[in-house]
């Protein structure tokens, strides 16, 4: 079987050693985590930028992500990666506009912002609903998705029955997550990301060496299909339309974990746990940079090397949808391209790479458990159920919540035959909620009913999209159905929640003043800043830094890629854009520093 590994005793020893070290570090933090909920869910708000940023990158990819990205390259070329690169605009917007506001809001979870921003019965109901929806439903599906991905990795990479291996891994991960709180999660995330990235880079280097160098790699793949090497989609085909829609809509419309419009989920949790707002911003910037510019190229290069060494991967991927592969291609599905290259790894490094898959799995699971428990405890138990317990009692409740989420997630993983399908449904269900999540920071008029109506409208539009509107749009325009559905849902949601906002009462002036005094957001705040006797926050510099950072990261991502694919001219151009963005960003930071010094 392709990619099925024969691990040496020393590789197994490395894997065992890695698991023991991870468990030991997790347990080290258990005493500290017992001090209170702030320690358990927010590390006492003492996370340095490098730890919180690295923890976010570690969380954002699961065990099958390298396999999926290499598979994209095999199936549709490098440009297919725009389906996730399109989220970059939203990521940098979160860094330069929202990260400081999140830290100033001093919330434990993103849901708690509802309590900071709105008042009344609708706000209370919204908070309770989102606590259960995000804490149990969405994160249980995430848990199931990540676990199912690990099952696939076990089958594809190890050729073993995954039940026992997964049970051991889940038990170990559950124990240290439950005991150690966010410090344990973050500390192990840092180790796990370093291993995962190092393993991927070494695999990419050895793969290129095996092919005979980058020149040979580009030559061989180019002979099969030059379009595979293109970083941007060529022509006006389905991929081009998909990418265009995603770049224009995805980043502000879709509530995707790790790329929530305006920040949310574990990104908000890490920003809230930062030492201060500067650490929150710097850490989130490091996360976005590492996520987009650093991480993908080793996986892409491995995918290209697999095609160069074994063109049958390419032939299989071009068979067309629904066409059964002939016997000689049966083993060459795109998902096997990444593990195919493991055969070229030496003893020791093979153990490290295999352990890095376990690391990717564990880092996502630990955050999912801790984050879900934070929703259930902070946004459901404390406001709706609590009966006079002390801090240590609350930590016990948090640990029970971790166990509940792990149990529900395990059942989901066990029962769902197609988690990917369920995941897609959930993503589209809330595809139109992004604008309201952004504008609640910027516009005083947004209220709890805005969020509620946006969610309901998204769900109803989703149903219409599924029963025929999506198909009709695809046939009428000739565009990609899923992405057109996304546009339809987002537009419908906006068309509903904006009128609802005007038809309902805004939050009380006292609530708006308290929010403004605490967060000092920019945007349209009517007379609230004057009532607070505070200056209005201008966003010009933040928006310039957003543009500069986006240019810097896209420049680094595409410049590195172009140089690796030996397109020197575009490589140099993109690197120049990256440098220009970095200079613009530096000017922004200097301007901020000068302003602070003048104020002192």
């Amino acid at each position, binding site marked *: 079987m392709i990619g099925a590994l024969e691990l040496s005793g*020393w590789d197994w020893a490395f894997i065992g050693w890695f698991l023991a070290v991870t468990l030991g570090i997790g347990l080290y933090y258990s005493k500290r985590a017992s001090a209170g909920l702030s320690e358990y869910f927010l590390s006492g708000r003492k996370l340095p930028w490098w730890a919180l940023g690295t923890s976010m990158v570690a969380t954002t990819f699961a065990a099958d992500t390298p396999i999926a990205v290499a598979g994209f390259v095999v199936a549709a070329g490098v440009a297919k990666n725009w389906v996730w690169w399109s989220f970059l605009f939203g990521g940098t917007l979160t860094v330069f506009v929202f990260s400081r506001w999140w830290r100033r809001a001093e919330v434990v979870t993103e849901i708690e912002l509802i309590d900071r921003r709105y008042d009344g019965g609708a706000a209370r109901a919204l908070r309770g609903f989102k606590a259960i929806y995000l804490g149990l439903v969405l994160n249980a599906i995430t848990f199931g998705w990540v676990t199912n991905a690990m099952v696939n990795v076990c089958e594809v990479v190890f050729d073993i029955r995954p039940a026992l291996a997964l049970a051991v891994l889940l038990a170990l991960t559950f124990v240290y997550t439950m005991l150690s709180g966010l410090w344990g999660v973050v*500390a192990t995330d840092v180790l796990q990301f370093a291993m995962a990235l190092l393993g991927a880079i070494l695999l990419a280097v050895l793969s290129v060496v095996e092919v005979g160098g980058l020149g040979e790699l580009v030559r061989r793949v180019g002979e099969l299909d030059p379009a595979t090497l293109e970083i941007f989609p060529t022509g006006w085909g389905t991929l081009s339309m998909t990418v265009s829609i995603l770049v224009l809509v995805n980043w502000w419309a879709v509530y995707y974990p790790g790329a929530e419009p305006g920040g949310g989920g574990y990104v908000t949790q890490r920003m809230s746990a930062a*030492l201060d707002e500067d650490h929150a911003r710097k850490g989130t910037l490091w996360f976005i940079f590492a996520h987009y510019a650093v991480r993908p190229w080793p996986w892409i290069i491995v995918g290209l090397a697999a095609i160069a060494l074994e063109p049958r991967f390419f032939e299989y991927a071009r068979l067309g949808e629904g066409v059964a592969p002939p016997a000689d291609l049966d083993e060459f599905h795109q998902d096997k391209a990444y593990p195919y290259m493991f055969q070229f790894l030496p003893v*020791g490094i093979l*153990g490290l790479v295999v352990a890095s898959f376990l690391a990717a799995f564990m880092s996502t699971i630990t955050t999912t458990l801790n984050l879900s428990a934070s929703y259930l405890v902070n946004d459901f138990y404390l406001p709706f159920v609590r009966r006079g317990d002390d801090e240590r009692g609350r930590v016990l409740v948090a640990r029970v919540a971790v166990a509940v989420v792990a149990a529900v997630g395990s059942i989901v993983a066990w029962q769902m035959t197609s988690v990917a399908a369920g995941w897609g449904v959930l993503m589209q269900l809330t595809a139109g909620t992004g604008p309201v999540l952004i504008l609640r920071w910027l516009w005083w008029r947004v209220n709890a009913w805005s969020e509620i109506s946006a969610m309901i409208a998204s769900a109803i539009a989703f149903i219409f999209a599924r029963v025929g509107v999506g198909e009709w749009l695809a046939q009428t325009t000739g565009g990609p159905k899923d992405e057109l559905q996304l546009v339809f849902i987002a537009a419908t949601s906006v068309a509903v929640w904006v009128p609802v906002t005007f038809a309902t009462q805004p939050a009380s002036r006292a609530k708006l003043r308290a929010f403004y005094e605490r967060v000092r957001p920019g945007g349209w705040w009517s007379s609230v800043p004057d009532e607070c006797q505070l200056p209005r926050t201008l966003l010009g510099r933040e928006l310039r830094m957003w543009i500069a950072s986006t240019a810097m990261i896209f420049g680094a991502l595409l410049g590195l890629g172009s140089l690796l694919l030996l397109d020197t001219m575009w490589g140099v151009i993109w690197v120049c854009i990256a440098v220009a963005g970095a200079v613009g960003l530096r000017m922004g930071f200097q301007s901020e520093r000068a302003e602070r010094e003048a104020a002192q």
Partner: protein
Amino acid sequence: MTDRTVMPIAVGFYLLAVPLLVAIVISDNAAGRWTNAIAAAVMIGLGVAVHRRSGS
């Protein structure tokens, strides 16, 4: 960060370098030796970087 809270991360990097250092010795080819050496050096380097940030 100037307290010792992050020290276990540094220790973790040092510990993960140990099997890679041993693998340099037991590797039977040059590629195995140099890749394990690079990986071990990276782990130790990251350990030192975190160690220095721990203020120890």
